[in-house]
């Protein structure tokens, strides 16, 4: 497998404009002759579908939800970064670029990150023009707040519902194109395979299942865009929506798209702790709360059962402020998560099971008053109270880290194209911009950057080299074979009729991963997981029970297909974690640390790990894309 990142030449500030100028264009009158399939309708997919339709392409968009407005981007709370420097506090494109490269622990591609920082400013303009109700100052200008991993206020927000408002903006733009007949929308439709033309090796279309009727159908296109989100649900418990899955990306991987850095998963420090074994998902409390909340645990183990009011200040350990004085409670996510685990492992965690730390607003409430704090975080406080029955205005929140985001994803070059020509990948589903750790308020930025401002250029460049008449026939052999494979797999799932539910397997897989490939990983734990996962997978195919039929609305079958893919993908994740013998960002190998901090090994691992599928039952092949740091000096990350 040859990996060409297609990084443009020239100084980093000029690379994106040089690349855009070098790209070929499609004549406006010809654009309608090109069919483009977009899988996913979140910030990346929805923005791509809408924008490509605005340009004139013939677009079809698919999502598994009942409406494109429900994509998981909607759940993002805190905000979106942009290097506007509206606050005059020292921000710049270069600083956002620098913060993101450093925050990602030097495992992202410089050229991509710089482009992301450049287009961040356009995103805010575009969203404001589309009526996203961002928070405002009294004079009518946009308000900002600060976020973890940054010392400037560059985060734009709409209360605690920024993802919702940005997604509704995307959904509005997409709806306009649907109403105009430029996008054909397929809700409640799940992509189950990518079809690759055996002659040219290019992506030729997809096989999908209508989730209402169960019908399997094939669609051909000149290019296919995957914007199908992250794979955090491989852990079963995560902050992701229940339906999010790895299936589209994993199916593409099995068809030849390489998968990059699967072990880079982000554990978010501020989530509501697990309450019981019936727990179906975890709820994030926006990182923005760390602007005003102070994180602490009791200094003494004997104090953990005491009511927090009875623990005086000098008996509290504000451990983030103590360990990282310059970033304090705003330390990056990976660091804050590990620090919380450390306190709890030390027996100083609070709440049921001792897996929790306090996030306390006492001082902020005394300083700013309930009204001001309520204006900033009211809906988050309500959400917390609704779930836990505790009022954060009176009792400190209890939080604990949970799986939240996945930095790994399908490998893409500078054009966001995977190793299958004509198959592009955007947003969380690709690996490109966040390295080993994503900074807060950067996921929304990346999704919209990819969908609004990057793919419209790079896709045009690709299509300019494809003849419009070269559209595959969805009744041809490669499509028929792929559809038959999809049908056979689904038939197999409904015919096992074993004794265990799909969820029971998913929970067990999640437990294996959380214990052995979660916040702390070791050779021993990963080897153990790699022994357990195939056994669980075998049991799944022997003993799973999926009631109902294939050709009907069957939610168990939907889940079963996704869990079956997670059971294969989990192995790739652990394998990647095992080979990466260093600690960086969210990937913490206990063997590689200095004084409890992650210890990178730039001599051996300053690269992207790129996995190629070699066939079922065969070990995947690991390739590397070396990373060069010419603009941000490769240095040990410090937030002290």
């Amino acid at each position, binding site marked *: 497998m040859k990996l060409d990142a297609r990084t443009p030449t020239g100084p980093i500030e000029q690379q994106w404009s040089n690349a855009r100028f070098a790209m070929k264009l499609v004549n406006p009158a010809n654009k309608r002759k090109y069919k483009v399939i977009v899988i996913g309708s979140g910030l990346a997919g929805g923005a791509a579908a809408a*924008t490509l339709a*605005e340009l004139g392409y013939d677009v079809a968009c698919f999502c598994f*939800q*009942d*409406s*494109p407005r*429900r994509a*998981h981007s909607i*759940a993002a709370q805190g905000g979106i970064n942009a290097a*506007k420097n509206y606050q005059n506090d020292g921000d710049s494109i270069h600083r956002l670029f620098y913060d993101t490269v450093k925050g990602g622990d030097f495992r992202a591609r410089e050229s991509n990150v710089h482009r992301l920082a450049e287009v961040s400013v*356009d995103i805010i303009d*575009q*969203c*404001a*023009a*589309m*009526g996203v*109700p*961002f928070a*405002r*100052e009294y004079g009518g200008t946009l308000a900002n707040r600060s976020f973890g991993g940054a010392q400037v206020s560059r985060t734009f927000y709409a209360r605690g519902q920024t*993802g*919702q408002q940005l997604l*509704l903006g995307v*959904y*509005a*733009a997409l*709806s*306009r194109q649907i*109403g105009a007949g430029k996008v054909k929308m397929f809700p409640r439709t799940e992509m189950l395979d990518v079809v690759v033309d055996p002659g040219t090796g290019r992506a030729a279309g997809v096989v999908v299942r209508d989730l*209402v009727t169960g019908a399997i159908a094939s669609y051909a296109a000149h290019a296919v865009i995957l914007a199908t989100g992250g794979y955090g649900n491989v852990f079963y418990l995560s902050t992701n929506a*229940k339906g999010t899955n790895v299936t589209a990306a994993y199916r593409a991987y099995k068809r030849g798209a390489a998968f990059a850095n699967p072990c880079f998963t982000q554990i978010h420090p501020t989530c509501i702790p697990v*309450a*019981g074994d*019936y727990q*179906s*998902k975890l*709820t*994030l409390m926006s990182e923005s709360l760390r602007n005003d909340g102070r994180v602490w645990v009791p200094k003494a183990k004997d104090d953990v*059962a*005491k*009511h927090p009011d009875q623990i005086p200040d000098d008996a509290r350990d504000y451990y983030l402020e103590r360990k990282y004085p310059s970033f304090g409670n705003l330390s990056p996510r990976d660091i804050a998560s590990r620090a919380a685990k450390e306190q709890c492992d030390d027996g100083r965690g609070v*709440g049921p099971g001792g897996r929790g730390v306090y996030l306390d607003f006492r001082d902020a409430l005394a300083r700013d008053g309930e009204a001001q704090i309520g204006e900033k975080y009211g809906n988050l406080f309500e959400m917390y109270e*609704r*779930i*836990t*029955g*505790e009022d954060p205005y009176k009792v400190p929140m*209890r939080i604990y880290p949970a799986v939240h985001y996945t930095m790994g994803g399908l490998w893409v070059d500078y054009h966001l194209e995977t190793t299958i020509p004509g198959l592009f990948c955007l947003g969380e589903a690709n690996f490109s911009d966040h390295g080993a750790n994503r900074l807060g308020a950067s996921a929304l930025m990346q999704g919209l950057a990819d969908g*609004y401002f990057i793919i*419209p250029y790079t896709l045009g460049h690709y299509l300019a080299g494809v003849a419009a008449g070269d559209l595959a026939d969805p009744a041809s052999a490669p499509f028929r074979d792929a559809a038959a494979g999809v049908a056979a797999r689904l038939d197999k799932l409904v015919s096992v009729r074993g004794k265990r*539910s799909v969820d*029971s397997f998913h929970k067990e897989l999640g437990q294996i991963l959380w214990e052995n490939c979660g916040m702390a990983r070791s050779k021993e734990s990963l080897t153990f997981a790699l022994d357990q996962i195939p056994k669980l997978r075998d049991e799944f195919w022997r003993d799973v*029970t999926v*009631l*109902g039929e294939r050709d*009907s*609305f069957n*939610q*168990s079958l939907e889940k079963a297909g996704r869990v079956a893919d997670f059971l294969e993908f989990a192995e790739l994740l652990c394998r990647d974690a095992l080979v990466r013998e260093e600690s960086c960002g969210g990937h913490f190998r206990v063997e590689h640390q200095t004084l409890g901090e992650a210890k990178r090994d730039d001599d051996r691992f300053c690269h992207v790990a790129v996995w190629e599928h070699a066939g079922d039952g065969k070990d995947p092949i690991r390739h590397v894309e070396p990373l060069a740091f010419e603009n941000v000096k490769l240095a040990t990350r410090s937030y002290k």
Partner: protein
Amino acid sequence: MSNPAAPAADHARTLSLKLHIWRQADRVSPGKLVTYTVAGVSTHASFLEMLDILNEQLIANGEEPVAFDHDCREGICGACSLIINGRPHGGRAGTTTCQLHMRFFRDGDEIWIEPWRAHAFPVIKDLCVDRSAFDHVIAEGGFITANCGSAPDANDILVPKDHAERAMDAAACIGCGACVAACPNGSAMLFVAAKLAHLHHLPQGQPERSHRTQAMVTAMDAAGFGNCSNHYECEAACPKEISRDVMAMLNRDYAKAAYVAREREQKSHGSG
């Protein structure tokens, strides 16, 4: 709190419940309420987690699990629905079904669980309904025409803070459809008015204001929603507590738009 040593709200108790759940095989088959019992439900579990427990029990008995829509389970995606004891989302103020917790139920309770009931939202299976009518209404005008790339600097458009706040209040709609399900007429007035109010409280929404109002109201009628007759059940049921004031704004704008359209028509006739 009686025990100051326990900051956790209450100790989890478990409940046994009798559930009457609407089962319907598909869009055309007749449905019926089927009774199930479920035991050992923690008071810390959410309502949907209670249904998960039931479904695991059904699967173990070889019965097909109950289909229900859900996704984020944190009250923002708008996928979950359910009429619980006659009330959309269970009737607790500002709460979606996924955020309704079992601590609000008592041991031995009987609970009736049905899908949204509205002409424009046909049942597709059990508790799942087809809400695509909402998408069709949005596609007719629930947007600001601003092609990607054509935006001015964001701070060139000044938005007074209170206007932005009111726009945000209306924009908080999650499109769940509780307003329609609660309305005796199956009207979508609150949903449509919320989108219009979001856009019309902002300067960016002004150029298309009149056309948008007419187009969305026309689309709403065409999608099979009923008319509003001011019951305000929608406001009471809305999990995002969107105020009925948005409907007054709609009515005002609609009257204005109709007048402007009539004027325009007369003028065009007059000039030949």
